[in-house]
């Protein structure tokens, strides 16, 4: 109940996680591990930001990757075509995602349930079509190739892999901490009210549309940050980043990790990545194997693997509390 203590506790966890991540290359300098962590940073931001909508707000977006793709494209284009500095490119990506999310969200958040889900999917496909057809700007279906320049800023040289690793880790941990603090703020609990009973929240004076729109914009911004990390990792941007399959993957990550625990989606992102990396080495029927795993998770861990901690604490017939689900 002590606000300062809660805030400090989350920040301390974030600092510890960051220190651990920064120490990891010293323990295991393997390129595979470093690449895994950077991809996890990108996908973790995407999945956790989606869970702000799904797990906390009860808004199942099927088109969340449109912001991931937008962040990647805007960041890469600003560096490649406008030759701006990295911080300016980063800020441009964030602002672009916020504006895009505000415009699309203003329309989508008026709808509920499956109507909301499919409208977000429709907007995503529209954006994907624009990326594919606007070849002169985006490179079309080939993607934005040729690499992105990484001018040195504040002594940070993203062309060096160690610098890039640190930068990506800081972005991811900072983004996750910001999302965590947001979800523990009064706003985060208003969002839970809307998830549990939107009607009742309105009868208690909550402006439902406004709160849902704020959540949609924030989630879009953090997904965009994930896109920036991915863009740095692949040194470009590709239409697949904003395709529906990417949104689907983010939903799988949430399902695997669990929507009721804050780090659930991050855990899910890690599990899915390990699974993808492993299975593709052994079988060409990657999709089939993935389908079986998802089925098993859906049947066995209906609330994701992280829900095991909640079940151990409370009998399953009792409803989980927001504290347990945060």
């Amino acid at each position, binding site marked *: 109940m002590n606000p300062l203590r809660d805030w400090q506790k989350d920040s301390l966890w974030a600092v510890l996680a960051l220190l651990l991540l920064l120490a990891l290359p010293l323990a295991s300098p393997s390129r595979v591990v470093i690449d895994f962590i950077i991809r996890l940073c990108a996908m973790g931001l995407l999945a956790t930001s989606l869970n702000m909508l799904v797990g906390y707000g009860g808004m199942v977006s099927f088109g969340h990757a449109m912001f991931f793709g937008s962040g990647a494209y805007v960041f890469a284009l600003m560096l490649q075509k406008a030759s701006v500095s990295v911080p300016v490119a980063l800020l441009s990506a964030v602002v672009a995602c916020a504006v895009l999310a505000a415009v699309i969200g203003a329309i989508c958040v008026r709808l509920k349930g499956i109507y909301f889900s499919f409208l977000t999917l429709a907007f995503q496909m529209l954006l994907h079509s624009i990326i594919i057809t606007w070849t002169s700007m985006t490179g079309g279906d080939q993607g934005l190739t040729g690499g992105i320049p990484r001018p040195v800023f504040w002594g940070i040289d993203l062309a060096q892999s160690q610098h890039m690793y640190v930068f990506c880790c800081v972005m991811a941990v900072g983004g996750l901490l910001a999302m965590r603090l947001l979800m523990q703020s*009064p706003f985060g*609990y*208003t969002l839970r009210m809307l998830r549990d*009973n939107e009607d009742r*929240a309105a009868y*208690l004076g909550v402006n439902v549309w406004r*709160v849902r729109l704020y959540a949609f914009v924030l989630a879009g911004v953090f997904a965009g940050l994930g896109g920036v990390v991915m863009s740095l990792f692949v040194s470009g941007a590709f239409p697949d980043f904003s395709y529906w399959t990417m949104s689907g993957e983010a939903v799988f990550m949430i399902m695997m990790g669990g929507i009721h625990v804050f780090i659930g989606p991050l855990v899910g992102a890690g599990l899915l990545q390990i699974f993808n990396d492993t299975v593709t080495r052994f079988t060409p029927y990657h999709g089939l194997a993935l389908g079986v795993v998802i089925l098993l998770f859906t049947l066995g861990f209906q609330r994701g693997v992280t829900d095991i901690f909640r079940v151990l604490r409370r009998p399953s017939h009792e409803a989980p509390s927001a504290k347990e689900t945060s």
Partner: protein
Amino acid sequence: MLRVENLHKSFGGVHAIEDLSIDFAAGSLSAVIGPNGAGKTTFFNLISGGLQPDSGKILLDGENMVGLSRNAIVHKGIGRAFQVAKLFKSLTVEESLRAALQSALGRAAQMHGNFPLMATRDRAHEVMAQLGLAHKADTVSGNLSHGDQKLLDMALALVLRPKVLLLDEPVAGMGPDERTQMMDTVQQLWRQGGLTIVLIEHDMELVFRVAQRIHVLSYGKLLAQGSPEDIRHHPKVIEAYLGKAVEHAGD
């Protein structure tokens, strides 16, 4: 205080509320009764902004509420509890009340600081004590008994300090003891003063016991209104709703 004038609402060809005018005096405890389908809940939905009337006025202290959204009407001072409790099932009793209060403080979208806000503590504790929910403060709403869920539903409306409290069948689904207890709580709230309570209820014994004034609806129209004694012996009300038994019980 609360006054509706020539209110009209129809769904297709069905007139759910027809030319309805009622005046609820400040600080009164009134009941709206009538057979199923009389338009009672529709009437509450119109007052609380869940539905918009086709015509007519809803005046709170002289200000017209028609056209305002549900959340704006709450901020004007009309609180509501529901026939089937509408709760936040993953929040505890205290969290629910404090989350509701932060909205009343205009801080529902505040993105800094931790939940719950200190400014919401005293009022939440006061209402929990008032309604006998203090010992359930840390219970998750979804795990409460039916009676406690109804109490929490009322507490959510009450915590915002409304001028008018609308209670839609507050004792629905409760056992005899719980019913009496709930009605005693409602009466206690009213006796503390400052609150205008309007309730819909089917339990005539309780209605006649607590209400100062009763308004009877039938097919969306006002059939009769007056004191419990007037209503008990009103021929039209006996014919349309109460039947002979209640009249004799009263005698």
